[in-house]
């Protein structure tokens, strides 16, 4: 019970912090979002202290989301420096 309330307070504080640092760039905002997500996953979704297979599924999904984004960005982001093949 206390765990939930403390988590919620942390989430609200972090969200408010995001508002104030939003001008410092997207990376910082996303980093704060990652911390918030970890709190929701660990405490609200009970990943902390449940079966290992739950954590494996969660981490696996995260890895593949990152993989897809990276693969696409690796293309779009490097077309200026290493453009597409032109015969």
């Amino acid at each position: 019970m206390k765990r939930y309330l403390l988590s919620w307070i942390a989430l609200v504080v972090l969200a408010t912090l995001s508002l104030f640092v939003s001008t410092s760039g997207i990376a910082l905002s996303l980093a704060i979002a990652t911390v918030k997500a970890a709190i929701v996953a660990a405490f609200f979704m009970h990943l902390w202290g449940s079966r290992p297979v739950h954590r494996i599924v969660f981490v696996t999904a995260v890895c593949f989301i990152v993989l897809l984004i990276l693969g696409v960005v690796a293309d779009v982001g490097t077309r200026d420096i290493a453009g597409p093949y032109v015969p």
Partner: protein
Amino acid sequence: MIDYLRAPSGIRSWLGSIDHKRIALMYLVAVTIALVLGGAFAMLMRTKLLISGPGIMQPLTYNRLFTWHGVTMVFMFMIPAIPAVFGNFMLPIMVGAKDLAFPRINLASFYVYCAGAALALWGMIHGGADTGWTFYSPYSTASPTDVAPIAIAIFILGVSSIMTGLNFIATTHMLRVKGMRWMDLPLFVWAIYATSVIQVIATPVLGLSVTLVAMDHALHMGMFDPTLGGDPVLFQHLFWFYSHPAVYIMILPAMGVITELAPTFARKNVLSYKAIAFSSLGIAFVGFLTWGHHMFVAGISQLDAAIFGVMSMFVAIFSAIKVFTWLGTLYKGSIALTAPMLYFFTFIYLFAFGGMTGIAVATTSLDVHWHDTYFVIAHFHFIMIGGTLTAFLAAIHYWFPKMFGRMYPEKWAVLSAVGVFVGFNLTFVPQFLLGNAGMPRRYYSYPDRYHVLNVCSTLGAYLLGSVMVFTLAYLIVALFKGKRATANPWGSRGFEWRVPSPPPTENFEAPLDLRLGCYEYDRE
């Protein structure tokens, strides 16, 4: 004990059954219809290609046919066939369970499949689509045909696939009989498990990409529209992120079947259990790192192309590990040349050849020449027909006695296996030559110099199609007239052969005895 086929009786007890074995058979009927339909589309295409110029059918019809052939074969046959039929039937028995983790979700997955298939067929009758099964933007957005219904149908078929995969993963983790560790599992289970991970992770991305195409076409969403600054190549990224791992959904279960055949018909333990088990996971994982090799000439950056080219080389390592392990399993074994084993050897030969041509087209500089030619078509048909369909045929023969309690006619099956091999090679070897000589794929007409090879390919297709019809015929006859089978006609150590043929509804009359492993042929 009454077997699962006989009790309970009545059509409603089948259509509403949550028994994994009955659901497997319903899937078998459905995917067989899909195979026949997809095959019919192919026969029509090959008939047009008997002549080099216009005639026999309209160009738009031809474009529709290759689209429907791809959609039907990939999403209604290749993806579900081995998992939803043999995975469904065998997985619970192989882990010592009475059913899957979620039997009602299993039945629901079948009806979702039917809904998706029905929508796809309705979309085809309605005149859609002519984009190819790959739905590339911007043509898929601009096509005058009705793209959205088939695209949404693929989404629905994907949902069925996810439900199946989810069920298999949960079953493997949670329903293994007491005392069965991961390293005691039959290797077919490892193959199905690896396949299921791909299904659960990759399929949603396909669902998203076809939904975006449907919305672009029907609602002018403009996600990939160049006039609004959109990038059509991004569709290809999303599409292939699923569709490359999808080919591993198609081949991993096939490899699982092959792995079951080798120990049984050589009466020898698998050369290396861990090699097969871990290479299945390896293929599933590395298969996700290679999708860009479908896009080498699409306009991606050369850096991205280089990365994907290198990654594509790695996945072959795991396939090679398997091929050598299978051959090593046979070495010094006591080999029985039954029909399933003829399909085994067909698989080894055609898969190895097809796999090597895969490495060839994954070589960026070479793909520049071969991309979008018949070389690529030949490559993937070697894997899909020579690999997956061959293994599917092997499986239906191997497990026929278990599933139906009857034997198929061995002489007809041997004849059929030879016919498949000959027909297949006559159809697709010319296509390697055509592609290398420059004939593009998805072309309605072609220059006269490609004529002879096209005629040869079409005649091979007619032979292959005839043999397939013949196979279906004798298997159906065997259902009713086949010799009654014993529990273990092959003398296999596999777990599924320790229950009656056909099995009772709850699979086991007594719990599985794990003291004898499923590949232990060196002791009694």
